[in-house]
């Protein structure tokens, strides 16, 4: 199994632990990652203001991966959604594709439409498989309740992203449960984390985040598990800022899925960058079986 790893902008700059933990986990599971240094912005943050510039940015990444005949694995869900959307629309709209390709050809690239784009979770679920993951687990969690957060751009629009059933998804829950933890049901599990409005309408963004966290906590979660750079920073950094500002209810610590999985595979906390999270998650080690 060989994939081109797409990190996007946020992970290398502000969430290095997502990269290090994903690499560590995938290595143990026999997944080989290829780094393409020329990858650029996925286009997602530009789409509000300039659709074509966003598609162009996305398409360049797709063309780069295509030129190496690799399937892409994306860690961020917003990036995943954008790349999937760009691939989809360029297959649907030949005029747009031609226009984008005209620009790409200036540097010898072309989007042909062969590319396959996967999220980290899809690779773990479909390519590696839950059974293979379970085989590598040496210290399963006991009595750990996890609020599994799917992330909007992985689920919807479903006919574009083709990630899982958009209404009743189970993929991420199954991956969480493979570690021995319990993935609880909570009402707001499929809703937005609030990150797209951080910096745009912070009050609204904070409301959405807070509601989710309260709902997860009230449903009995010990931790929230995510697998997206924006969602994670929102639940981690922004939750911490909110606790400082809005008064401290007990935080619900978020953990990245490869961190959760990595610990149960016996990978050390430094490699998984546990200490790099803003909200302390060290207590999760107490749930590991001895």
């Amino acid at each position: 199994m060989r994939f081109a790893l797409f990190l996007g902008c946020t992970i290398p700059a502000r969430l290095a632990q997502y990269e290090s933990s994903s690499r560590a986990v995938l290595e143990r599971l026999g997944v080989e990652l290829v780094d393409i240094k020329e990858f650029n912005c996925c286009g997602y943050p530009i789409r509000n203001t300039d659709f074509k510039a966003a598609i162009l940015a996305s398409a360049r990444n797709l063309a780069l991966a295509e030129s190496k005949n690799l399937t892409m694995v994306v860690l961020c869900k917003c990036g995943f959604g954008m790349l999937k959307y760009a691939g989809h629309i360029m297959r649907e709209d030949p005029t747009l594709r031609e226009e984008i390709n005209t620009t790409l050809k200036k540097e010898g690239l072309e989007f042909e439409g062969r590319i396959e784009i996967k999220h980290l979770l899809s690779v773990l679920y479909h390519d590696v498989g839950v059974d293979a993951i379970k085989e590598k687990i040496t210290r399963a969690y006991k009595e750990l309740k996890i609020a599994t957060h799917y992330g909007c751009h992985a689920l919807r629009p479903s006919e574009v992203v083709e990630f899982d059933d958009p209404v009743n998804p189970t993929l991420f829950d199954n991956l969480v449960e493979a570690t021995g933890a319990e993935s609880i049901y909570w009402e707001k599990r499929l809703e937005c984390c609030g990150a797209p409005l951080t910096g745009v309408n912070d009050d609204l963004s904070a409301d959405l985040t807070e509601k989710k966290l309260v709902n997860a906590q009230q449903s009995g979660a010990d931790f929230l598990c995510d697998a997206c750079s924006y969602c994670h920073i929102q639940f981690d950094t922004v939750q911490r800022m909110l606790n400082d500002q809005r008064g401290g209810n007990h935080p619900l610590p978020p953990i990245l899925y490869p961190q959760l999985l990595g610990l149960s595979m016996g990978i050390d906390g430094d490699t998984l960058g546990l200490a790099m999270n803003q909200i302390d998650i060290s207590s999760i080690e107490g749930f590991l079986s001895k």
Partner: protein
Amino acid sequence: MAYYISLYVSLAIFAIGLVYKVLTWFFLKTSLYSKSIPTAKRLSSALKGIISTIFSPKILTLIKVFFLDIILQRKVLKEDFLRWLTHILIYGAFMLLLLMHALDAFITSAIFSNYSATLNPFMFLRDLFGVLVIIGICLAVYRRFILKAPRLTSNPMDIYAIILLALIMLSGILLEGGKIGSYCLYKQMVTDYAGLEEQEEEFKALTAFWVANFGTVSPGLRAPFDTELLEAGEELHEMSCAGCHSRPQWAFMGYSVASAIKGVALGLDRAGIPTVLWYIHFLACFIGLAYLPFSKLFHIITSPLSLLANSVMDRQLSDPANIATRQALELDACMHCGQCSNGCSVAVAFEHIGNVNILPSEKMQSLKRVVSGRHMDEKEIRLILDGTYLCTNCHRCTDVCPAGINLEELWFTMREALFQNDYPEFCVLSPLSFYRGLMRQSIAESDYRRPLTLAREAIGAGCALMKDQGKTINLTPSDRGLQGELRLSDQASSFSACFGCQTCTNVCPVVANYENPKEALGLLPHQIMYSVGLGIKDLAFGSQMLWDCVTCYLCQEQCPQGVKVTEVLYELKNLAIKNVYKD
């Protein structure tokens, strides 16, 4: 005389320029907070910072950076071998030439008591260093104009620097070639060192020897010569000349020139060409010296300073006065190499949008102008602001900058300063603001909110109907054009299938967040779909809902009619911004 006058004039200009430039680092303002820090405070903080760093363990970091990043250019090597080779050839060999040749009176003669420019190894080394610089210059020209290295653009400053260097090197070699063949200079040397000019036979012998072996072109004597004459000449040569004159073949570049121009050497010599070349050579050097503080070559001083400062400074911990000073210095440390633009995550957007300020290396040039206080019109400022905001704060520019400039931090502070012009910037209403949101505690609350409000107001200003909520709206489509404009996204025209069930609004988490959503959001998602159906631009563009949409796609996923609600909202955002510019 002319030599000394021009030397002192250029030294004076260099010194004044240097002092002026250094002073600007203490009064130019790159950020909002630096506005409140007086120059005296910045000077004293810098002094304190430098002294306390030197007498702390951080000195080890500075030493490491000095050798690895400044002398050996590790950062350049990591990114691009050809560029590293080019630069190390130019700067390394030029520095050696400067120390050994240009400053020979002060350095080389002080170290080697028997130093003479015409003796080996100095004669050979001078040409060797010279040829290395020339290879470097050729590689630079090749990278820029033939290979066309990506994102490497050439502005006049870049071209002047190359021309100046080339002029210094070529004039030097031509001068050497001219001097080797010059009969006038030969005679002068004979007078000064041998005292033979009155003794005809001896003079003839020595001249024959020099014509045969040293490339001198004599008007009267031509090879071949008798062995006896040459032997006599050699004897005289050993007596009077050999002590401070190696064979010119060692100056292989100059000697090649001398050989090539042998046929016309006498004419050139009579016309005084070697003297002309000498003027060109030293004038080019002195012009370079005087121009240095104002040119790209100033990075010889500023880039190392930036590398050193950045290796020991920290956004959170360092004195804000020193950060203000460092940022002003960083503007001078940029040598426009384009490495940042090559690594830039959003550089690709430039290909479509066409605003050069998106590219970090070009943004830097514009920001220099902004900071210098030069007058700019609204259009120019807005383009700079737009290019500066169209950035994902991915830090790649900063990671690759060979001058160690903290570009990402510079963009951040300069954006905030540019917002003070009160021109609306629409990128603030996008996830590009995510990082600014995370950093909001470093910005005053009113400064933080102002650009967000301004952008929304600018879009709302063109949508009169939004403000007049009581007005009855004519149901005859007012603008069929709007529907035609919605053609970018996937099936954005699907809004016409809307039958008004309001599912989109009912599932929207943003709508659900408000007790009175209409008051907070203007129109609700289903109402926006109607407005698009009716072609009412004011309502479709003017609603706050557009900018408060989290793009979670719940509405679109749940729509029983398959209306691409989120895609329509996305596209309306694009159009609403365009609508502002249309006016």
